[in-house]
């Protein structure tokens, strides 16, 4: 039985190895480099957003106060990634786990893109949030962030399961860019 299984599995693997249509390594390297560049761009945007948010918070709570940036930044960052009870409940109701947000990030979407998607979804009326179409996504805010291929892939994913509701939940929870980034990285 063991030898037979080994032989048959080897035949199966040989068939696949022989039939596989694989890209040349240079194409994969290019794709990896391009993706890394795009992610760096997203992270830079995210840093600007977080810095701006920190600035706004400090200015509005302490008008006229001029505290050194270095002393206030760490405390604000740590607090801003903590989910509130409301946010946790909204995400849990949509069955949106940290792993799923991380999966979204791993699928090639940057925190800025996820954030933009949530923002675009939030602008739609509730009944339309569950029926996002390629056209809406293409016409929306995401057009600035996603390539045509990514938009197609995303719209395809939206129709696969309850992802539209999950993204709507992301919007409803009003997660900050820092919270999204923290979830995606966890």
């Amino acid at each position, binding site marked *: 039985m063991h030898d037979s299984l080994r032989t048959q599995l080897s035949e*199966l693997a040989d068939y*696949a190895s022989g039939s596989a*249509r*694989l890209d040349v*390594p240079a194409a994969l390297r290019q794709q990896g480099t391009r993706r890394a560049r795009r992610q760096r761009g997203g992270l830079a945007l995210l840093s600007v957003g977080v810095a701006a948010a920190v600035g706004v918070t400090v200015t509005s709570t302490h008008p006229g106060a001029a505290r050194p940036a270095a002393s206030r930044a760490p405390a604000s960052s740590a607090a801003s990634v903590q989910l509130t009870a409301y946010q946790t409940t909204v995400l849990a109701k949509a069955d949106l786990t940290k792993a799923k947000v991380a999966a979204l990030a791993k699928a090639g979407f940057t925190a800025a893109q996820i954030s933009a998607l949530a923002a675009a979804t939030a602008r739609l009326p509730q009944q339309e949030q569950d029926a996002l179409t390629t056209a809406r996504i293409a016409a929306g805010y995401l057009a600035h962030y996603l390539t045509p291929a990514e938009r197609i892939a995303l719209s395809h994913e939206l129709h696969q399961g309850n992802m539209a509701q999950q993204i709507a939940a992301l919007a409803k929870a009003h997660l900050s860019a820092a919270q999204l980034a923290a979830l995606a990285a966890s």
Partner: protein
Amino acid sequence: MPRADDFDEFYATTSRRLVGQLFAMTGDLSEAEDAVQEAYIRAWRRWPRVQEYHDREAWIRTVAYRISVNAWSKARNRLTAHHRASRHAEQPEISPDLLTLIGALRKIPEPQRRAIVLHHLVGLSVDEIAAETGAPSGTIKARLARGRKALAPLVADSDETRSPRIQLTEHNRETITRA
């Protein structure tokens, strides 16, 4: 700057073998190709570190496997697979024996299938599989035993019993290879 020639050589020597292993785990050639290639893209992004790993091939296999079982990635892969379907139209026809084996492998749970492939195809020991999958050795032994038991009626020792038991239509073949 990471060394491109090292990566290219590693890719050239291991990619097809890994596609074969992933195909045995997933039963879907397009998905295996996409998952393996995606794993190499991720490897390139952290190549200076991956290059130093004791078993780079195992790293790629593990990443590719995770990609293939990730539901959201699957959705994306299906789209890619759809675009590539026409290219696979001219691939060599798969034998009925292998189709039977793919069908049998799909009937057993994913963890058992992975253990069976890692042990009987890749040639890893129980402890090595435990290290690669993160499951205890006892669990791996149980998965292997259960998987073999489930496959036993379909994987016989003699060539005689390996002859096709069922007549497959063109539609059957297409469904099994593309699902």
